[in-house]
């Protein structure tokens, strides 16, 4: 316990800036919250932690007027308030950045920022005012772009920053950030940390949801941990609890976090995929890389470096404009993902699981089975759920997907379990080269751990893996070699020793040096 923390008796008398007390909520008979609480002091950054499905999102939805609690109270400075709509919550100064990106893609950055409150001149929308009003907020989160550019041109990371700018611009008193850092890099987090700290000193109270405990320690002063809709740790100083205690509170048991440290280059075999001097329509130039059987190659870079675009080009979603792709020693022309999977056994686990990884309204079994239909179809292309079962069930069981039935819609699962289903699809397909694009974005510690184990298990069974991640810790933990990408070029290849400090320093140096070179060249 640090000395700055207010003693308990004072805490009881000063009303919290914002508090949810004993909140209950269920959806169609499934209890999401049973007596959860959240207490937020003025000028504090409060961590809200819990596994996927623990009730964090429901709690946030209640705090922001999306849902109404069945029991319990919402208090602002000691007075009870009722939020009938998200608009009502915003009027009381409660704003939220959701983990899903809620942008109108055809609108400009400025209009997205000021959505629903566009500046008017004589009753009509003024685009000039809009741009001027939006620019400072955009620059505050480091988006130095034309405010009137279309939002569809943003990368996922930039879109997340726009969402944060949007919330900041509401001049809110209470800001809830639901996994704001899930798709941004460490450098961007540093930037965000400074902004949030400033904001907090300026009088805003912030709730910070994240699965990255390092971030919690560097940013938050107090922490609340939810499990099964209840408070396990209730409003305690972050400094007073260890990482282990937090994890135990979240998952309800002690888990030994997986460390892949020792398996460097265990059994790297023949090259599975080689790129020789490849350029793409996205602007990649002169890429050379080799991925061998039984090897994890990490691909690290800042958001917008061209990593996802490279993955998409490999599976045929982008045109290769020069050079050669070699699969198993033979030159290959991969025209589309069907080709990639059917003829070359290359699968791509998308970072955007909601839009690209899963068909949320379809059942789990259909989502997983989609890659094997071709193999098991009968006469005239008939397939049945019965026939997909043998291919579909083992990977689901293996990944320990928490579900009631195999026939339930994929959309009803929590984020972590959705990601598992997305991965199970490719295991069922028996892909030999898997490209994981941000496989653990927005999933909790236990699910992340399971995903890491899965990746390692896959390579140990002879698969080759290209791991795209903005989580440098994850890359260092898993990869045999680390490729650093910047501005659509490969900047360096670093042999991974598994030690975070020296490797991360090397990676960051590579990136800053490249950036400086580019700036020097421009000047």
């Amino acid at each position, binding site marked *: 316990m640090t000395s700055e923390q207010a003693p308990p008796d004072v805490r009881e008398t000063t009303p919290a800036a914002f508090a949810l007390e004993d909140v209950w909520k269920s959806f169609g008979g499934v209890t999401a919250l049973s007596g959860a609480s959240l207490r937020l002091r003025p000028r504090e950054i409060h961590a809200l932690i819990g596994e996927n499905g623990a009730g964090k999102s429901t709690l946030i939805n209640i705090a922001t007027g999306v849902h109404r609690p069945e029991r319990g109270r919402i208090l602002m400075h000691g007075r009870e308030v009722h939020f009938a709509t998200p608009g009502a919550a915003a009027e009381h100064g409660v704003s939220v950045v959701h983990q899903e990106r*809620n942008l109108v893609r055809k*609108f400009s950055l400025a*209009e997205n920022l000021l959505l629903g409150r566009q500046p008017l001149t004589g009753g*009509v929308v003024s685009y000039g005012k809009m741009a001027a009003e939006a620019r400072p907020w955009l620059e505050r989160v480091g988006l130095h772009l034309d405010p009137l*550019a279309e939002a*569809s041109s943003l*990368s996922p990371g930039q879109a997340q920053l726009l969402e944060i700018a949007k919330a900041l611009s509401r001049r809110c008193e209470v800001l809830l950030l639901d996994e704001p850092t899930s798709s941004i890099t460490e450098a961007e987090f540093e930037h965000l940390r400074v902004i949030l700290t400033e904001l907090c000193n300026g009088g805003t109270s912030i709730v910070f949801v994240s699965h990255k405990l390092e971030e919690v320690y560097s940013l938050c002063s107090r922490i609340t941990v939810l499990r099964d809709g209840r408070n396990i740790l209730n409003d305690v100083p972050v400094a007073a609890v260890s990482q282990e205690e937090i994890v135990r509170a979240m998952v309800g048991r002690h888990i030994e976090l997986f460390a892949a440290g020792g398996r460097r280059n265990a059994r790297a075999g023949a090259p599975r995929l080689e790129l020789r001097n490849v350029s793409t329509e*996205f602007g990649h130039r002169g890429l050379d890389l080799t991925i061998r059987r039984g090897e994890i190659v990490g691909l690290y870079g800042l958001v917008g470096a061209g990593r996802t675009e490279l993955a998409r080009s490999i599976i045929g979603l982008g045109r290769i404009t020069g050079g050669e792709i070699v699969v198993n020693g033979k030159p290959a022309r991969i025209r589309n993902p069907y080709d990639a999977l059917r003829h070359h056994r290359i699968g791509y686990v998308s970072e955007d699981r909601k839009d690209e990884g899963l068909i949320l309204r379809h059942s789990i079994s259909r989502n997983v089975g989609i890659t094997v239909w071709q193999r098991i179809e009968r006469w005239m292309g008939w397939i049945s759920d019965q026939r997909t079962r043998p291919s579909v069930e083992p990977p689901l069981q293996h990944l320990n997907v928490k579900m009631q039935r195999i026939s339930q819609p994929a959309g009803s699962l929590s984020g972590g379990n959705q990601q598992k289903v997305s991965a199970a699809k490719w295991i069922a397909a028996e892909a030999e080269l898997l490209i994981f694009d941000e496989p653990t974005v927005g999933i909790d510690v236990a699910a992340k751990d399971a995903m890491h184990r899965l990746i390692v298990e896959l390579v140990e069974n002879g698969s080759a893996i290209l791991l795209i991640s903005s989580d440098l810790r994850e890359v260092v933990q898993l990869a045999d070699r680390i490729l650093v990408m910047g501005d659509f070029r490969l900047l360096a290849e670093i042999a991974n020793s598994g030690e975070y400090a020296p490797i991360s320093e090397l990676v960051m140096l590579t990136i800053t040096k490249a950036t400086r070179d580019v700036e020097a060249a421009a000047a």
Partner: protein
Amino acid sequence: MRRLFSTQWAPLLAATAVAGIVLGLATKQFGTAFNIYTILQTTAIYAAIGLSQMVVLAIADMSLAVGGIAGLVTIAVGGLYGVQHWPIGAAIVAGLVLGLVCGLVNGLIIAEMDLSGFIVTLATGTAFTGIAYGVTSAIPYSNIPPVLVSLGQGRASFFSYLLVPAIAMSIAVGAGFRWLPIGRAILAVGGNREAALLAGIRHKRAMLVAHALSGLLAAIAAVMYIGVLESATPATGSEWLIISFAVPIIGGTALVGGDAPAAGCFVAALVLAAINDVLIVLNVNTEAVQMAEGLLIFAAVMSGKLAQSVGRASPGRGRPLRSAGSLGP
């Protein structure tokens, strides 16, 4: 000016103009003032019909009741003037209000019961048509006010007077979507309903306004058409369904919602009217006209796809912010 040429319908307009000039030189009938007037007269009607559909497509909904509303409005105006002997001004206003109310009913049912516009307007559209036939016993009113006839059939050389309301509507709708808060709200709900909801935009109100506006525009189309036909028949609107979708789609409206290119709609109306006319001038039978319309819808969608794949590599995934020139609707 550069933005003008980068729009989806610019190539379409250019191709039509070139084809028009060639045809004008090659055939005797096509280039005459009267023939061009005929094309423009049809253009005006098509544009009005297309706009009526476009405003609901903008909110990612659709209306199958455009024709039904038009039929009902037609007999209302015809009956009030011809049988009830209302002054023509009052009859027209009553007709427009009726269209607005029909649209409002659609919007209310859709927004309050959270149903899809497809189902609701399939039902109400059929009902409106039924009422129109029931009231008139399927007999058209032939006592048509001269003012509507001179609007529908009047011309100064090639310029059809109907272009005046049609162009005014296009500009008003286009400007409304670009500059009015409610227009932006409709596009926001159409573009990303969830985002609009969370931003505190009243999506039910937006839905209501979009459908009411659609009803009003359908009513204006109907009033314009009474003079062209010189008859107020309940059959008006029965063949408008395909046109109502063809015009906005060829004009560059996405079925998924979020945009409302009124100018594109007008150009598409012109193109469809011209094709219609050419095929008649060239003595091709009417079935071929329909086929050509179908192919054109397909071509429009394809050219949109093509422009997209040339413009940016893949949706939203290209290099960040290559151009900042395109914005708004």
